[in-house]
């Protein structure tokens, strides 16, 4: 009994020192000069622009990765073809790669001195140091979540209903819309929440490709680092609180959507 209490104490103590107290401390620091100062710090034009850009980028990345994620999950679960295992393995790369390497890869491919970047520049398209680069970086790092959440659901529901619909004359699109999509709804929702959290929180890849131009290509996370480096601690902690609140909201949502048998 004593050893059980001891283990509980060690486990909870570790979590408190590593997670709870530090996160609580950020809230305390953000409001140390009062709520008004914190509010003013996150409503400057730069902060509001960073927040807006973060939401815009996350919306694009989540939409792209959700559409792709559903298609990719169907391909991986329902089709048999050569190179399927390779595709399956490649899909996890974004989770295993350093975000800085992701940023570097986009910088090399799309910089003005590269063939691709120079070609795009002829048509007035700029990727690096502008919003498209941030979007590409964010899509890259948040790519696997929807696929990985939808795949097990697809496996579980099987194909009987889809085959029945097919013999009754439904078109592939009708089958997808009326049978498959409703069945995988929850997996998609969970994947979307995870993708959103990752998209909003991305920092390494974005700080490499964005050029960190204040008020132009700064996302919320880059804004936090920028405020810190400029010794504006209230601004940096207040912006962190905004991000932390989003993260905690995400946690609550994932608890809502998480498949029951996992818990």
């Amino acid at each position, binding site marked *: 009994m004593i050893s059980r209490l001891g*283990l*509980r104490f060690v*486990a*909870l103590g*570790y*979590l408190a020192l*590593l*997670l709870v107290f*530090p*996160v609580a*401390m950020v809230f*305390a*620091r953000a409001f140390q000069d009062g709520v008004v100062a914190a509010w003013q710090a996150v409503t400057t034009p730069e902060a509001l622009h960073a927040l807006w850009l973060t939401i815009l980028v996350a919306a694009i990345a989540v939409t792209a990765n959700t559409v*792709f994620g559903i298609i*990719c999950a169907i*391909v991986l679960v*329902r*089709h*048999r073809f050569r190179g399927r295992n390779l595709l399956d*393995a*490649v*899909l*996890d*790369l974004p*989770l295993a*790669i*350093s*975000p*800085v390497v992701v940023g*570097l*890869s986009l*910088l*090399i*491919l799309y910089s003005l001195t590269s063939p691709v970047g120079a070609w795009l520049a002829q048509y007035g398209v700029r990727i690096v140091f502008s919003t498209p680069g941030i979007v590409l970086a964010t*899509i*890259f790092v948040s*790519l696997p979540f929807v696929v990985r959440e939808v795949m097990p659901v697809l*496996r579980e529901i*099987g194909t009987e209903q889809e*085959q029945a619909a*097919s013999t009754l004359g439904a*078109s*592939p699109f009708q089958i997808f819309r009326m049978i498959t999509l409703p069945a995988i709804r929850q997996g998609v929702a969970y994947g979307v929440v995870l993708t959103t*959290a990752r998209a909003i*929180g991305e*920092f*390494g890849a974005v*700080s*490499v490709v964005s050029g960190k131009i204040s008020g132009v290509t700064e996302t919320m*996370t880059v804004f*936090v*680092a920028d405020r810190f480096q400029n010794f504006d601690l209230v601004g*940096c*902690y207040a912006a*962190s609180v905004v*991000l932390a609140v989003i*993260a*905690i909201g995400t*946690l*609550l949502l994932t608890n809502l959507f998480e498949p029951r048998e996992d818990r």
Partner: protein
Amino acid sequence: MSASANTGAAPAGKAGAAPVNGALTRGVTVIYLSLIVLIPLAAVVWTSFGEGIGGFLRSLSNPQAIAALRLTFEVSLVVVFINIVTGTLIAWVLVRDSFRGKGLVNSLIDLPFALPTVVAGLTLLSLYGPKSPLGLNIAYTKAAVVMALLFVTLPFVVRAVQPVLAEMDLEMEEAAHSLGASPFTTFLRIIFPNLLPAVLSGAALSFARSVGEFGSIVLISGNLPYKTEVASVFIYNQIQTDNIAGAAAVSVLLLALSLLILIGLNALNRWGRRHDQ
């Protein structure tokens, strides 16, 4: 799970128009993955070998790069070992113990995944940095790097071990206990071997994450070359000073390592599944 093997077989052949549809969706998947992931990564590999193998090796023989890589492996190994112990312990407490607020603690485990990494680093800095209310300042030391990595990798081992522990039969443990084994012996001889595949897979994931981590480290480590500069921060600094070849060479090394870990995890998962049966 065993049913999925049969139902997973391609139904496409039976459903009239589906084969065309299948080729289309497959094409879309491959093109999207290539454009977003593979072509950019290929560009990094291409750049790092731009001046041949010699150029690649020359970039890697930079002593600052070597120091950064060595530090990265050191701290990642330390973090993995701590995670194996604390992760297994936390999983055990969450599965076998019961106390008020356990549900809350359980959802708290995922916080490091939800919290942006730069905020994670900042939270640690606010408690353990300069002006620490505890009078404990570890900022700009290796300990700070380890702590930041422990924060962001916390969920991996816990979440890998938890479901396995929850499904484990209590009978074996009871048998060991009735034969006079101490709780410690029971854990070491009965519980831990059964958890091993899960522990290793969680450990591999946290190693991969540690090796590439950037956001949580960059503010708290001070990025002192030869002292607290890890590989990802080194790459970042090389990009800032326009040494793209140097950045690409170290990146390729990290990429190769990520690939190795993914392949190892794949093998580990197959082994774990066989272990189940």
